[in-house]
């Protein structure tokens, strides 16, 4: 197939800055060279292309709008959008990986995390050394997450979580999960590290969609007090 030249019927490029076009073209090239040649193989096998993580980090895809002091690219939102567009021309599963890492893990840590959490997690997530996931959906609560059952309790200077999450992109490979749970009836976010007692995330099989992205069957938090 001939090389992809973009689709721009309305000369929308004239509304973009030079920097925005540069970012877009960098990701376009990355997708042509690194994603498209290998993606069908992963899609067939139902495997996530781990080898792409470093390359994605090198071109600044993770947390692209966050400050440079955390090792992020500090781009505007249009440039970030163009990055997602180009990446998804490769594959929606690969774009989902990047969306979760950036929008659902790094962004909430940046917005709501403590200074200590930001300094520790953001640079590692930006480099792709650590992988994150976001757990909101539960087996019985999808469109209505406010009904969630997962509970948090304050205990011994930390929190104890109990419940199960489902359909959590990156869940099987994540080093850290942003988990939503009710604390005294109010939904709050918690960072749960892999290896925490009671944290399990077995892989889901049989997906006909987003096959080059990993989704665990269920993530369980069983850290009961009793």
């Amino acid at each position, binding site marked *: 197939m001939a090389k992809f030249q973009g689709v721009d019927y309305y000369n929308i490029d004239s509304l973009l800055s030079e920097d925005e076009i540069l970012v877009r073209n960098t990701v376009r090239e990355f997708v042509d060279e690194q994603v498209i040649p290998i993606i069908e193989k992963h899609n067939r096998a139902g495997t996530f292309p781990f080898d792409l993580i470093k390359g994605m980090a090198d071109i600044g895809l993770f947390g692209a709008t966050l400050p440079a002091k955390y090792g992020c690219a500090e781009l505007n939102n*249009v440039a970030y959008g163009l990055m997602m567009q180009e990446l998804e021309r490769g594959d929606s599963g690969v774009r989902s990986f990047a969306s979760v890492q950036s929008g659902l893990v790094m*962004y909430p840590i940046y917005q709501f995390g403590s200074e200590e959490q930001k300094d520790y997690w953001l640079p590692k997530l930006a480099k792709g050394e650590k992988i994150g996931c976001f757990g909101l959906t539960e087996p019985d609560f999808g469109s209505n997450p406010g009904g969630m059952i997962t509970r948090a309790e304050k205990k011994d200077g930390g929190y104890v979580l109990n419940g199960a999450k489902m359909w959590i992109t990156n869940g099987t490979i994540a080093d850290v999960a942003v988990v939503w749970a009710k604390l005294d009836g109010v939904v709050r976010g918690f960072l749960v590290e892999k290896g925490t007692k009671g944290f399990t995330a077995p892989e889901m099989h049989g997906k006909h*969609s987003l096959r080059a992205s990993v989704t665990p069957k269920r993530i369980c938090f069983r850290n009961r007090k009793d």
Partner: protein
Amino acid sequence: MCLSQARYGIAWGVIGSAMACYDSSLQYAKSRIQFGKPIAAFQMTQEKLVHMVTEITKAQLLCLQLGRLKDQGKMKFTQISMAKRNNVYFALEIARMARAIHGANGILDEYPIMRHAANLESVITYEGTHEMHTLIIGEDITGHAAFM
């Protein structure tokens, strides 16, 4: 907040899937000969290609303005719902049209079409289903929440 950030990226992302499907369709239609002509020369193929490129262009404009509003700190989350809802819906429609243009070849993984089409079935569900985004915009314009 964080859901907005990811949804915003999805609204842009699916333009990429749609572009991949359109690009492959245009090339295929120009090279596949039936009845002694490239299939691109038939009116019904042109209608599909025109629909695809028009919807891609509309999606690009929705996202660009959304991004400019976001950069100015003026974006409303209901506006993200509009871009996510519209763009995923049309990306899926474009993927299905692309499959038709590729004929039987459209089902093979030699072409990216079925992979994008199948992937978009997840994308239209996650980060707020098509229906939930309809109701979010519906509440915003009418003042009536129709979720329950």
